[in-house]
């Protein structure tokens, strides 16, 4: 069988991915003392009940760790590990598992965390394989856009930290414009269609966010529990606004691309179309995509809060209290995103009216 370019690429990714995964399983990536669990002994287990009448079992295991690198290399240590059957904040360790440890001056070892990086590399390899297998040459575009966007995300966060959560709206709106411009440049190149998609994206974001922000102010942000923003290290309100602006951006770009591309093709096939007909077609196309698109974001935002929601409900908190402290911000974020996604439909269609001159030129040629 002849090796095509695609097959060679797949083979290379597979071999490289497997080697790096195995290497990362055995060796530390960067500083840190790595150890291997060489022996596991169950010491005891006992039933426990807490003040909420939750029944769990606590286990104690004795682990023998062999240090794999650093100044203590080759030495073995005994460690005891307590974990609950639910493994909410602690976990069970297994024979042969690799863990990062800290060895104290008193000669005691302490498990810091399980080694997990190799699984990320494994998952990345699988993703890359499937990406190249399906998209062949086009896959580098997606790779490029994801990488560039991740870097831009990092820069945005650095700026946010530098401004310490002030000027959020200005910062994240400018970031959104840069994100959208760069992404459309990568996928579409510099041409009229790209400019129209960009215009539609920015327009929809500005109008939707302006409207939502207006509603927030008009209702005095009543019922928004900013205290519930998880992992807040700065003003939670600024975090909420920032994540709402960025979260919906991809969906609005997705939708603008779909609508503008479809309408442009439609117009090319049928240059006699009136604006009225085009408006109608745009709404029809948008109608089909907007529902599923809202659900994409809704599920991403809601699912993240699910572990906490379950815990709150488990501990006999009322439904309204649980909702307020775990799900309400996700719902608000989804609602604002949904408004953006809905408004993109007419805005992208209106922006597509600007397509006409190009089609006429193309017709003339």
């Amino acid at each position, binding site marked *: 069988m002849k090796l095509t370019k695609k097959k060679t690429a797949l083979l290379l990714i597979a071999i490289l991915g497997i080697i790096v995964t195995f290497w990362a399983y055995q060796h530390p990536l960067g500083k840190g003392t790595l150890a291997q669990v060489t022996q596991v002994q169950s010491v005891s287990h006992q039933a426990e009940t807490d003040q909420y009448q939750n029944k769990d079992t606590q286990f104690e295991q004795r682990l023998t760790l062999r240090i794999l690198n650093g100044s203590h290399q080759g030495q073995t240590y005994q460690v005891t590990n307590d974990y*609950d059957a639910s493994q909410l904040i602690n976990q069970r360790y297994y024979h042969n598992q690799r863990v990062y440890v800290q060895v104290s001056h008193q000669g005691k070892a302490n498990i810091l965390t399980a080694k997990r990086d190799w699984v990320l590399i494994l998952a990345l390899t*699988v993703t890359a394989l499937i990406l190249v297998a399906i998209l062949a040459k086009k896959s580098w575009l997606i790779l490029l856009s994801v990488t560039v966007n991740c870097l831009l995300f990092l820069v945005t966060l650095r700026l946010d930290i530098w401004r310490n959560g002030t000027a959020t709206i200005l910062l994240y709106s400018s970031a959104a414009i840069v994100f959208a411009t760069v992404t459309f440049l990568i996928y579409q190149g510099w041409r009229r269609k790209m400019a129209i998609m960009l215009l539609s994206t920015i327009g929809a974001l500005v109008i939707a966010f302006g409207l939502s922000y207006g509603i927030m102010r008009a209702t005095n942000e009543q019922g928004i529990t900013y205290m519930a923003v998880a992992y807040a290290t700065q003003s939670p309100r600024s975090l909420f606004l920032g994540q709402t602006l960025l979260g919906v951006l991809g*969906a609005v770009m997705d939708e603008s691309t779909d609508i503008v591309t479809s309408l442009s093709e439609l117009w090319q096939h049928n240059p006699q179309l009136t604006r009225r007909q085009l408006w109608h077609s745009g709404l029809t196309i948008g109608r089909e995509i907007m529902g599923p698109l809202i659900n994409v974001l809704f599920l991403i935002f809601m699912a993240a809060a699910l572990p906490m929601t379950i815990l709150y409900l*488990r501990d006999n908190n009322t439904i309204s209290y649980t909702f307020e402290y775990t799900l309400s911000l996700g719902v608000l974020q989804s609602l604002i995103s949904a408004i953006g996604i809905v408004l993109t439909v007419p805005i992208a269609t209106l922006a597509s009216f600007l397509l006409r001159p190009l089609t006429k030129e193309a017709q003339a040629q």
Partner: protein
Amino acid sequence: MSTMTALLLVLLVLIVLVGGTAGLKSYLSILINFCLIFMAAWLIAGGANIWLIAVIFIPLKLATIVYLGTNEQKLADQAFLSSLLVTVIIVLLILGLTWLGQAFGLGDQDDEDLIGLATAPGINYLLITALVAIFSTLGAISEAAVAMNAGLLELLRQTPTIEPAAYQRSAQQMGQDILGTAINTILFGFFGSNLALFIWYLRLNYRLNKLLNDKLFVQEALVLLESFIGVLLIVPLTTWLIGWWQNHAKNHQQKITADQTRPSQESREKK
């Protein structure tokens, strides 16, 4: 009026203005989806079997998104079928990766939020973490499934006699367009969902090594990659499903016409 009520009302007005009945159906699908999520959480908290919850709620959620999000029976059926198939594959992948990564439950970063809550609640958090990952991917998978099926069905409608090779080429092209935008939607959704956590990592100067082994980071990164894989798989699977379906229908049609005409014509047609 609270902000949430106002936003709900404004969204309802806008969605009906833009989408008419279809918009109303989309609005309904979001409400139902919310109820399903909350019900799943409530049942699990009440001690329901998590596997059972997964088996019941995954198809229900897919059906809600697909059937209320599209306006054509055949398209909805096909999209539901392909998204369900991909979800089955993704569930296996998620279970495997969650187990290998040993990244489940809550991280050190949640300590502050855990004050006053039970840390031994008696529910299997490995399975809950897997279920959360599955739920996050469902929206993206079904959205890609609807787009891909709509494109392919339209293609077959306009050129019913398309050659297999041309069909594959068009499907490939369509898949590329859909994937590029779908992956963006997921990526920015992920940014929007994890903004605060990433600022936490940056502020506390996490070193790369610490970050790559951090429970929450690995959890979130795996969800992102699993969602990517989910939408990627939609393309070949839908192409194959619809192609197979089309062939099946064609053969069936041929058989009927052959049966109706003389038997000698059947052998000629086969050549």
